[in-house]
């Protein structure tokens, strides 16, 4: 736009300029009670002397004056926007319920004062000794006087009051006294004036307030304006800092071993300062729709400085032999010639020792000289991708978690769980040849581990806590699996019966015989042998948890029984009475039968499906070692037990029973029952010999070992993104799904779920199931531990930062999205200006434009003032602290906290830092190109640390203070890298080395005027 304005009025750039003109019309109409006479009736110029006309004249000029006064008052208020009141009559009078209210009251005061002052200078000499003037009462220091003045000014502003457009202010000034003096005397009248003027002041005020609010928004409080989530400083800073933190950490972690740490500490004042400033520029852009014009140059300079110094550190670390400018310029994407010129220019003797600081200084020369052949500085993204990521690998990439350690851990648990208490105990047992953790032979890895063990929670005492969950306490071990399958329960019932009646001896002939009942008895006249018949129950295809017939044995004995009864009778009379006795008998053959029903159940306590077993009480089937039996010993052993005889074959039962039983004594069913069975309670016969049990155990160990191999072979690793380690959600769902998917096949085979071939096959199925369940269980324990670890880290990181709502997961996930290029921070903001103006151009002028982590004085930054001082109070001795960057490794061990802290399961390492940015501008100025032509100075809204006194009729009085733009924003940086024990390249441990403290040990200095210069953390180069 090179148009030099022609001598015409510019057309307003708005479609809504009509209200004010309507108002003008209203005013005109209101004042048009004046009669107008056409010009033709006039002949010669002359001044009017009529008093009424004088009133009209003064009313008209008062209108002009008050309009200008309103403009001036607004302008004065913007240059000294008081939002904090002093405890003076004036301060108390303008004190509002909020900073904005106070500011508006203050504007009203300024308008009144300007109006009063201007009116006092506009006496109109109307002619012929008639003068007209307008006036407002002076404001004196008393509260009443100030209140009365404020009461006369009503104001509604477009930014706040909905019936006006932004940029329009309607002002009413009440009770202006108009005075006309003439020879006839003095007449006065009171008038109220209503004016509408354009202003950008309130929009500037609001935008600047918003800027300050946004600067004060920390990472964890993004939502101060709903959908403008990312517009706060916290996020704007994070979007720059996070990828840098991650890239640096990854570089240090994965750089070849011979490299020293390039970034120690990971966060330093200079780089944090640069990124914080870039973020602040972005907040400016998002708030105002524009940024300080100085920003362009600064951004280029600082970004280049950042790129060069970062690149320098990388190359310095890669090659200790010294870095040439050529190496560095490759990194920074700058021309070598430009860099050499710059380094020459920045060194006194022309010979430059290239180091980080000289590079940064050099960039100022390059940028200061506009001819410098310096291209655009590399973006942070390009930097992290271009040279850090190249060397560090996939920054923030997924960690692969294989099933192997879980497959091994559960195998060892099931196998050795009776001998070792935990995985780590495995190493300590001579009889167990297992190295755990697996594959950790690198001493540096061991060191890394012990470092963590010693330093998590600050002391080694907690290592038991760390290891909780690693215990080897499986529900079922291999020997127990065998016990559960080789487990037969036998139930016996016996039913004794008699075939035919027993003999019955008759009464003797004659009368009066009385039986001697105690003498009644059965005798076996002729004893028979025992006869036994055995009925076999099924041996095959028997379900486990159901009684099945094992053997039904019927034993019979046929004896010839004789029944004997004794009788007595009294015979004779008197002294000749005597007792006579006699005996009667009866004989008959009687058969006794005992039916013994032996039932059995087997493997009732197994976990596998009860599909039935093919060969149960018999040998057979291919599965398992040949010399380990099925349950074929059960029938014979059961018979032996039930009948109380030692059988070497079942066929011997009859003979052995015959031997055992004295058949001559079997005269009743009871006798029969007692004689045939030895026990009829339930019992569990021994099924295996000890040696067989051992053989079987060895076999099943091998079988499950094969399953372990299959599991390892077939289950792919899960890829776990960094966020997953800290978001509290399950990590290993993928492994578990795969385990579940393969379980049926591995336990029951490929077939359609038929019966187990034999008990050994069932042992194998059972052991496989127990094993797979245990692998599953281990993954769940891992997840639980991961959640515990995350919660512990969460508490320790967040607690001291007063960001109770903060989540590490949110930080990590944000970093992930940033690294993936998924965060869109774009937003738009604009100034509305005023419908009465043409397009208003706003300019931001921040002092300093770039907030340094170093104190500055007036010589370096002309805007520096002592607290409270005005523009013209100059003191070269005053220092100002623009920015303090605080960073500290937050509580976690400095070499990183393991996720999960179990040896062998340490997949990722977490390092965290708490970053706090404090900043204070010495002066922050916003200008609109709306000018008072007499000085050409635009309207200026200026925020600094300044006390404001207002000139009243009886002297100056302090109204209050302008407050500087002062901000503080908290961010947590959390970086997760693959652990050294799982990816043994580079260096163990991440973050800042253990035992070294960076940042400030004492209290950090405050920002703003006259900070404590001796405090640490000021950059002094």
């Amino acid at each position: 736009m090179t148009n030099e304005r022609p001598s015409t009025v510019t057309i307003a750039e708005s479609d809504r300029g009509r209200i004010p003109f309507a108002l003008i019309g209203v005013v005109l109409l209101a004042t048009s009670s004046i009669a107008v006479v056409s010009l033709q009736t006039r002949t010669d110029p002359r001044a009017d002397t009529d008093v009424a006309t004088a009133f009209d004249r003064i009313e008209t000029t008062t209108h002009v004056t008050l309009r200008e006064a309103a403009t001036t008052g607004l302008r004065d208020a913007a240059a000294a926007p008081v939002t904090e009141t002093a405890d003076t009559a004036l301060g108390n009078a303008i004190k509002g319920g909020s900073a904005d209210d106070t500011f508006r009251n203050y504007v009203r005061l300024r308008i009144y004062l300007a109006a009063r002052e201007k009116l006092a200078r506009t006496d109109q000499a109307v002619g012929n000794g008639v003068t007209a003037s307008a006036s407002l009462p002076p404001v004196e220091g008393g509260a009443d006087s100030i209140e009365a003045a404020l009461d006369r000014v009503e104001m509604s502003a477009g930014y706040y009051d909905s019936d006006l457009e932004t940029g329009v202010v309607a002002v009413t000034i009440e009770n202006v006294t108009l005075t006309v003096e003439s020879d006839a005397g003095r007449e006065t009248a009171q008038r109220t004036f209503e004016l509408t003027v354009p202003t950008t002041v309130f929009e500037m005020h609001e935008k600047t307030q918003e800027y300050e609010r946004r600067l004060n928004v920390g990472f964890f409080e993004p939502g101060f304006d709903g959908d403008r989530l990312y517009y706060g400083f916290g996020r704007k800073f994070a979007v720059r800092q996070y990828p840098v933190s991650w890239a640096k950490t990854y570089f240090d972690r994965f750089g070849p071993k011979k490299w020293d740490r390039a970034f120690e500490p990971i966060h330093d004042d200079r780089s944090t300062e640069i990124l914080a400033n870039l973020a602040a520029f972005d907040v400016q852009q998002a708030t105002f729709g524009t940024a300080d014009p100085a920003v362009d140059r600064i951004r280029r300079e600082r970004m280049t400085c950042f790129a060069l110094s970062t690149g320098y550190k990388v190359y310095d670390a890669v090659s200790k032999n010294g870095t040439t400018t050529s190496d560095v310029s490759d990194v920074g994407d700058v021309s070598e010639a430009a860099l050499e010129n710059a380094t020459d220019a920045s060194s006194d003797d022309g010979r430059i020792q290239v180091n980080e600081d000289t590079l940064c200084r050099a960039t100022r020369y390059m940028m200061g000289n506009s001819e410098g052949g310096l291209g655009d500085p590399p973006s942070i993204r390009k930097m992290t991708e271009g040279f850090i990521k190249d060397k560090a690998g996939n920054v923030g990439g997924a960690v692969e978690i294989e099933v192997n350690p879980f497959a091994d851990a559960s195998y060892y648990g099931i196998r050795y769980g009776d001998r070792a208490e935990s995985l780590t105990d495995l190493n300590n047992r001579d009889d167990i040849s297992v190295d755990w953790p697996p594959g950790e032979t690198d001493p540096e890895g061991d060191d890394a581990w012990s470092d963590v063990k010693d330093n998590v929670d600050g002391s080694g005492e907690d290592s038991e806590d760390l290891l909780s969950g690693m215990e080897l306490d499986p529900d079922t071990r291999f020997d127990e699996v065998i016990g559960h399958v080789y487990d037969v329960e036998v139930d016996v019932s016996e039913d004794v019966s008699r075939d035919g009646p027993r003999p019955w001896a008759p009464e003797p002939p004659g009368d009066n015989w009385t039986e001697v009942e105690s003498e009644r008895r059965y005798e076996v006249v002729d004893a028979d042998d025992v006869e036994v018949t055995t009925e076999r129950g099924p041996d095959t295809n028997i379900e486990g948890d159901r009684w099945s017939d094992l053997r039904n044995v019927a034993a019979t004995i046929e004896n010839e029984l004789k029944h004997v009864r004794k009788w007595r009778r009294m015979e004779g009379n008197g002294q000749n009475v005597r007792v006579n006795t006699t005996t009667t008998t009866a004989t008959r053959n009687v058969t006794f039968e005992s039916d013994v029903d032996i039932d059995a159940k087997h493997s009732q306590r197994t976990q596998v499906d009860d599909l039935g077993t093919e060969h149960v009480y018999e040998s057979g089937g291919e599965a398992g070692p040949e010399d380990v039996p099925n349950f074929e010993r059960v029938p014979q052993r059961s018979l032996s037990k039930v009948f109380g005889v030692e059988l070497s074959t079942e066929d011997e039962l009859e003979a052995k029973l015959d031997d055992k039983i004295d058949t001559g004594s079997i005269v009743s069913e009871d006798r029969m029952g007692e004689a045939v069975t030895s026990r009829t309670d339930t019992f569990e016969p021994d099924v295996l010999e000890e040696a067989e049990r051992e053989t079987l155990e060895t076999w099943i160990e091998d079988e499950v070992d094969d399953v372990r191999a299959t599991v390892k072979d077939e289950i792919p690793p899960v890829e776990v993104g960094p966020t997953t380690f800290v978001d509290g959600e399950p990590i290993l769902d993928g492994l578990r799904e795969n385990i579940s998917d393969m379980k049926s096949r591995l336990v029951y085979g490929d077939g359609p779920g038929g019966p187990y071939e034999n008990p050994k096959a069932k042992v194998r199925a059972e052991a496989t199931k127990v094993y797979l369940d245990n692998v599953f269980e281990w993954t769940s324990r891992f997840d639980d531990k991961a959640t515990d670890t995350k919660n512990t880290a969460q508490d320790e990181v967040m607690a001291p930062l007063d960001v109770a709502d903060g989540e590490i997961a949110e930080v990590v996930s944000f970093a992930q999205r940033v690294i993936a290029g998924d965060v869109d921070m774009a937003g738009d903001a604009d100034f509305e200006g005023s419908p009465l103006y043409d397009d208003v151009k706003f300019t931001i002028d921040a002092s300093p434009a770039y907030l340094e982590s170093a104190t500055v004085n007036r010589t370096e930054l002309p805007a520096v003032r002592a607290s409270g001082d005005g523009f013209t109070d100059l003191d070269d001795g005053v220092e100002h602290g623009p920015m303090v960057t605080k960073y500290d490794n937050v509580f976690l061990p400095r070499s990183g906290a393991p996720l999960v802290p179990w040896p062998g399961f340490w997949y990722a390492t977490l390092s965290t830092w708490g970053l706090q940015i404090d900043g204070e501008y010495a002066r922050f100025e916003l200008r609109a190109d709306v000018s008072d032509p007499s000085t050409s100075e635009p309207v200026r809204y200026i925020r600094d640390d300044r006390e404001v006194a207002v000139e009243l009729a009886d002297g100056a009085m302090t109204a209050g203070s302008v407050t500087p733009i002062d901000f503080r924003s908290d961010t947590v940086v959390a970086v997760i890298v693959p652990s050294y024990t799982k990816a043994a390249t580079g260096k163990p441990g991440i973050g800042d080395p253990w035992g070294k403290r960076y940042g400030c040990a004492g209290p950090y200095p405050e920002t703003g005027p006259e900070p404590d210069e001796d405090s640490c953390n000021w950059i002094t180069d």
Partner: protein
Amino acid sequence: MSQRGISTVVDATLALLLISASILVVATSLAADQPGMDLEASDHVSETVSISTANVSYSLRPVVDDIDDVDFEDDAYSNSVFQRQRYGSVADLVASSTMLNVTIEGRQLTREGEIYADAVEGSLMEALTGLGYDAYVTGRWQPYDGASIAATGTYGSPPPGDADVQLATLRVPSGVQPVSEDVEDAYEDGYGTGRSDQKYERAAGVLAETIVERYLPAGETQVALEGQWFRRDLAVYRYLRIESILAETEADSDWGDEYYHFDPATDENVLGRSGANATKANAYLARGTDGLGPSAAGEADGLRGVIEDDLKETISHEEMKSFDESSSIEEIVITVRVWRA
């Protein structure tokens, strides 16, 4: 996407036209009934000048290349830095334009107002010709009789000899502090010293300081000098312009060019960025070498010298004692002449 059908100015003018027309109708009937109640057309016009408002956009471009020491051509400039706008009543626009066209012994203090003056004239004429008048408007600021420092603005062309011209005057604030009573006091104090040169010198000192403060308000200028680029250049421009005018007015003295204390290129100078001191720089312009303190070298008199010469020449001892009566330092007189087009 502003869809503009009509400009604010045209809009305003239209509104004025309509309203004025209605007033004229009323007035005509009133005139028929009561021919004695006349209102002068010039009042009507001055009312229009006072009440109708306009927004004027203008450029400060003419300052470029005006003096050697400030080139206004930093790379960081975009054209828009030269752009300004002002919204106000037509009278206010005339007044501010007039004040910008200030001269010392006929030497123009700044070229900032050149385009502005044209634009103000445009809006003024647009407002008045809408009423069917031709107009010639002058603004005049003269702090005291015979002042060598004064501001004038003329808008429109003088009326033709045969025109039926109506005249109205309007007094509006000049923005200069009303210091005439302070001038009287200073004069009396100087008189009290018994040294004949003191009374005029002291009175002139008060006036000079006030006028310098009007054009270079220390608070604003301090911030501008501490700033960068155009705003700083512009402040430096005004200082150097005034300095060079003062140097020229003294050029015929024996001492030659005594103004060598301004050096904006040196940081520590009162016009340098880090040494910026508007209060001191203003004192230098107002009171010459004395303004810099007793140890400063040179014999520059500053604006005080110019004013002192004026006062001595045109204002008598008695008049100085009642300086307030003749001073019009705080106001601009706007004279409006209109005639039927």
